């Protein structure tokens, strides 16, 4: 009999912190231990609502390996009261989890194509499960490209993992930062400058983008200039999500709810909305 957790979407379930890693000065990863034997099953790109008891809830993408449900992993940037409370949790302490919610990166639909990941800043976290999936099923895909941009070398997320992926002979990884000192041996410049050098088949590629909306817009323009079809581009959107099930309306984006219809959207579906100022 399955013991997989069936969460009530509105009721947080207590999870204990099994491990905490400080990734960057303002960014940390917490690993939560599911209490069921089947673990926590999710699709790459989905998110959970994490509840710091007595403080509040925040939507955080799941950033672990989808093939390993024994660990529920979240990478969090400390930007407010709730994430600050989460950052102070020590091993063994508890938080509440609701989820998983939302749409996923189309990793199965992408089979047979080149897959291009373009991430900026903490946007690499929601893409890591998709990267893990492609790597675990590498023979089903063509050229695999991971492009990542960050503010400075000190802001590069998952540095060791990027190096490990780059060390594989079947994956092209390129990293750039906006500015650096002389001790940085990598690229300096915007992430869009990496796209033209990645040498993927623009007519047979699926591109997954996650980062600040400005970065995603620049990236989409570069991809379009190269000839990548809009239907082959997917983006992960971010808005102020509260209920996570499309009832409260906080995350409404035109006719869509980011929590329910997203966060991952085919670009063609939201192209017009991304051009609307102030939305």
């Amino acid at each position, binding site marked *: 009999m399955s013991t997989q957790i069936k969460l009530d979407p509105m009721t947080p379930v207590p999870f204990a912190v099994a491990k905490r890693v400080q990734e960057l000065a303002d960014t940390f990863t917490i690993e939560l231990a599911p209490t069921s034997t089947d673990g926590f099953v999710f699709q790459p790109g989905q998110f959970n609502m994490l509840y710091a008891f007595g403080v509040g809830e925040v939507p955080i993408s799941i950033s672990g390996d989808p093939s390993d449900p024994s660990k529920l992993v979240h990478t969090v940037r400390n930007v407010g009261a709730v994430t600050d409370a989460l950052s102070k949790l020590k091993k063994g302490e508890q938080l509440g989890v609701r989820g998983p919610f939302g749409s996923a990166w189309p990793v199965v639909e992408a089979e047979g194509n080149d897959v291009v990941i373009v991430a900026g800043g903490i946007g690499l976290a929601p893409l890591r499960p998709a990267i893990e999936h492609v790597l675990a099923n590498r023979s089903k895909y063509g050229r695999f490209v991971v492009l990542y941009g960050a503010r400075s070398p000190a802001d590069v997320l998952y540095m060791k993992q990027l190096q490990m992926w780059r060390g594989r002979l079947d994956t092209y990884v390129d990293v750039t930062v906006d500015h650096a000192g*002389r001790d940085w041996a990598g690229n*300096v*410049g915007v992430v869009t400058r990496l796209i033209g*050098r990645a040498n993927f088949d623009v007519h047979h590629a699926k591109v997954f983008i996650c980062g600040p909306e400005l970065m995603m817009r620049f990236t989409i323009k570069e991809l379009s200039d190269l000839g990548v079809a809009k239907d082959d581009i997917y983006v992960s959107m971010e808005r102020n999500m509260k209920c996570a099930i499309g009832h409260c309306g906080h995350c409404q984006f035109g006719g869509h709810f980011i929590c329910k219809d997203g966060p991952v959207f085919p670009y063609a579906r939201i192209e017009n909305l991304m051009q609307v100022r102030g939305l």
Partner: protein
Amino acid sequence: MVKVEGLDKLLAEHPFFKGMDETSRKTLAGCARNERFNEGDYIAHEGKPAERFYFVRSGTVALEFHVQGQDGLVIETLHDGDVFGWSWMVPPYEWAYDIRAVTLTRVISLEATCLRKKLKKDNALGFELYSRFVPVMAKRLYSARQQLTDMYGKS
């Protein structure tokens, strides 16, 4: 004696010269030199005369601002197929940055004085060359403005 024929072929392989007619390319090749820089070599220094400009065949170079008492601040890296050094076009013809080879870098360089003389005599070639430079400059300006947004900062 400069082997113009060989340099012409190298120029033809660089994306900057894609589609340029052979006559124009051979004229430019008369001012060209095939060069190699080892990792760590400085190709140019801020404030020094900009006597050449460069087409990267392979390798990586860093554009750096010199910071007094500190290591240079890298503001951009350029790679295979890129162009750098248009200070030769803009008076007072001085380098705006330090340029350092990050890896072993192979370039073709064009000598500025030689080039200016040829372009004065051949306005069509001048127009052709400037028409190719402007999109490169526009793209780099666009990239620099993207960097200015500090888009990965906390929002």
